[in-house]
């Protein structure tokens, strides 16, 4: 199970990075989101993979899943959302001001939205 979990994180990270290296803003934002999923899973697994752990403390059971990575990842998820939102809206603003959705701000041969 550990091997499969690691492989999944690895594939997600690789796909995220590939997208983050693209030249247009939207794939980059999608890539960053994918990367943040991979990072969250990775961080979460630092506490070990617990199956059927206790949800809340009942007495002094020791089968409680490590809560520290969970607390860290919980805030990371929310902050990740804020980051995604900020970057995608920055991308929109860049397109509005520069007329291009290229990450380098190129005004190359960016075809404006076709007028139909």
């Amino acid at each position: 199970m550990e091997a499969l979990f690691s492989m999944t994180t690895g594939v997600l990270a690789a796909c995220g990075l590939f997208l983050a290296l693209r030249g247009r803003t939207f794939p980059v934002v999608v890539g960053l989101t994918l990367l943040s999923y991979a990072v969250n899973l990775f961080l979460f697994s630092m506490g070990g993979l617990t199956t059927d752990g206790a949800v809340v403390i009942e007495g002094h059971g020791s089968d409680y899943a490590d809560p520290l990575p969970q607390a860290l990842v919980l805030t990371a998820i929310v902050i990740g959302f804020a980051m995604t939102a900020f970057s995608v809206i920055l991308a929109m603003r860049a397109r509005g001001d520069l007329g291009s959705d290229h990450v380098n701000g190129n005004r190359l041969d960016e075809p404006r939205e076709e007028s139909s």
Partner: protein
Amino acid sequence: MPLLLIVLLPLVGSLLPIMSSNERRSACTALAAAPVLIALAVALYHTGAVLDGEVFRQAYSWIPALDLSLAVRLDGLSLLFVLLILGIGLLIIVYARYYLLASDNAPRFYAFLLLFMAAMLGIVMADNLLLLWFFWELTSLSSFLLIGYWYHQSEARKGARMALTVTGAGGLALLAGFLLLGHIVGSYDLQVVLDSRDMIQADPRYLPALLLVLAGAFTKSAQFPFQFWLPHAMAAPTPVSAFLHSATMVKAGVFLLARMHPALAGSPEWLYLVGLTGLVTLLYGAYFALLKYDLKGVLANSTISHLGLITLLLGLDSDMATIAALFHILNHAIFKAALFMTAGILDHETGTRDIRKLQGLWRVMPLTAAVAVIAGAAMAGVPYFNGFLSKEMLLKETLDTHLLGGLAWLIPTLATLGSLLSAAYAVRLVYNVFFHGPLPELPKTAHAPPKLMIAPGLLLAALCLVIGIMPALSVTALLTAAGNAALAAETPELHLTVWHGLNLPLLMSAVALIGGVALYWQRRHLFAFQRQFGARDARRLFEASVQSLVHGTQRLIDTLENGSLQRYMLWLVITILCLVGGTLLGATELRGPLPLQPLDGLIIAGAGMTIFAGLATALLHRRRLISLLMLSIVGLMTSLAFARFSAPDLALTQLAVEVVTMILLMLALFFLPQRTPKESSAPRILRDVLLASAFGGIVASLNFAVLTRPLESISHFFIAQSVPGGGGHNVVNVILVDFRGFDTLGEITVLCIAAVGIYKLLNRLRLFMPSSDAEGRPWSRDRHPLILISVSQTILPLALLVSIFIFLRGHNAPGGGFIAGLVTAVALILLYIAHGVDWCQQRMSFQYQPLAVAGVGVAALTGLGSWAFGYPFLTSTFGHFHVPLIGDIELATALLFDLGVYLTVVGATLMILANLGKLTTAHRPSKQKDKEKA
């Protein structure tokens, strides 16, 4: 009496002159002189005891973690320099009163001068290597200000910059050297370092440490090959030159050599490095001093030469040579300061410093001429003047040295040659300017300087004579005390007399004097010889090398930082790959000792789906909508993974965030191009695939390596303390709102800031609104579908109820402010989607910005509230309450904090989405409307 006063008085006193006005020069001068006088009195108060062999040491703790203490000492060596700095400093203050022009800013000058003086005193009194370095750098900085005092002159600016570059670079080398010494010895305490000579010299790091310390000393003292900055520093006002470039700052380097002498000297490396550098500098400076036409140019090169002489003496391997070096430091400071003062007077009274234009001036300024004659004679080494005594000691010591082994006879020969040149330029300087024919036409009508302007020079000239005639009475005690410190041993008994009987050194002195006069007489041959060489301007070379350095770095920056985000990402990824990959290469085995958990069908299916969706997101990225749908599958699978591995809070959060993220990205995609054009070349794709695969491989390996190794978690503390300390059974929530509440406060603040940033980014954003999708199909006109409207309105109260439920139970069961906030936000957004922004705004008239800010405020105030009860920030408390109908509930102040989190999440999320949604309804021309009009 605190010794630190000697340093602090000028340091604090440097503020005094600034407070006075520039017009009232005498008051300003008095204000500058007062702290110096008091400091001198403090130093003199200790003098008797120091001369009797006592060493005062006082320390105050400063930064104990760095072993940096405010430790000062006053031993013989410090005392010699303290008296020089304060004594000559006082004279310079008086002299500068008359030297500065009415247009100059005197308060600024005195402030810089006192600052420099304090730094210099700090160097000579520091009892801690790091403290010494601190003051060392302070002298570099304050001398930069002083050299560049006439900052409107290009010469001054360039000279100041060059001096700062050279001495500053040397200072950094010195720091490195001191750090090495500190590592070898294990302490930065000066006394400990000085007592560890054997340990230091046996260490393999001795040579690098020595080289670095010498680099610092040689740059400061203008030793070859760093001598070039000193002549250019002559662009400073003459009082500065007299003080910094003869008496004090350039002496800091030789002071350092003397100070570190007990720890570093005595090795063959020291003998050769220090001795030969000194010898070369001695000859170089003397030769060029003879050739300069500018008065200050002659003096600058002569200073270089005399500093070389002192360095040579410090390098030689005998105790007497070290004493001679200290003696010459004193003598040189006295006669060179006097000579600089006369040069300043000449400049001031005649308007020129060119030796070719000046002659016969003794007729108009006899007192100045007298000072110059006496100081010049001391410089040339004429008997009964102080310079003669130390030069005689030098010649004697060079006869006994082991430097150069079988060729040791070269040293006294070359030392005699140096003395000969010194005599020649001394004669040229004094005779040419003050005698040598009638008074010429000058830029200004020459007249005698004010009495108080020449008085400091006269005093110094008198000192030259006193020391020269009665050395035993005047300086023996001081030199013995200083020698004790520099040798860390008893100074051999000193017999300073003018007449030692007929011996070889006397003969060498005579040869030097007579040869010097002869060389002066026949100097035109030398000038003609020198003219055959092309003139090389050190400053131009220096500026050119600085320029090429700047251009080089600019080119490097242009390559690295070309404005392409893709390029930066590439560098980042490569760095990660190298760092982490390198660490993994170092591991012996990837798999750890833990047994693997068994797989089941559900896990395999889930992982397979996640991998499939992740790959599809990447592969189909040019069809953006499909890519986005695939991304949402990954998000949902992540949420399920959290649920599967016993993290219900995370699963709930992820689910709610997933919904919000997808709505956001869909909205954004509406305004962005629907497809990505194909523009990456095949090699680029291949490169990125390779990089991404390597990255993924490393992440997977790392993850596997961690998962198969035993875990040492700190969480047992949180689990144990959650119920008794935090009053909650859901540890994750208790960590968020209680144990690590401060982190959470930071995080909601970031969330709020991001939302505000987005709000501003959306402000006045004008975007083209497409009327059809990528395939050319027009968007549906049915903006508010009926079913969605009914469902959303039905769901809203339910959803709000659920969110309150989740919020309240958060402390004891999965839930909490983050999740409840997201659920509320999702329910409201559904309402927006169903009814449109206008409909919602009519019914919900409040703004979201204040809501988000209020959330952060509530959380922060809850934290501050614990102060009111005398507890640290964010301390929480809890209790059980009985509420009718509902029953027993447990309430904690953490719940209030969680309320802040809840409000922030709702406010921030809606601020982002509602404002983005507003763009779709903005009243602005669209193609659709144009068509309708048409």
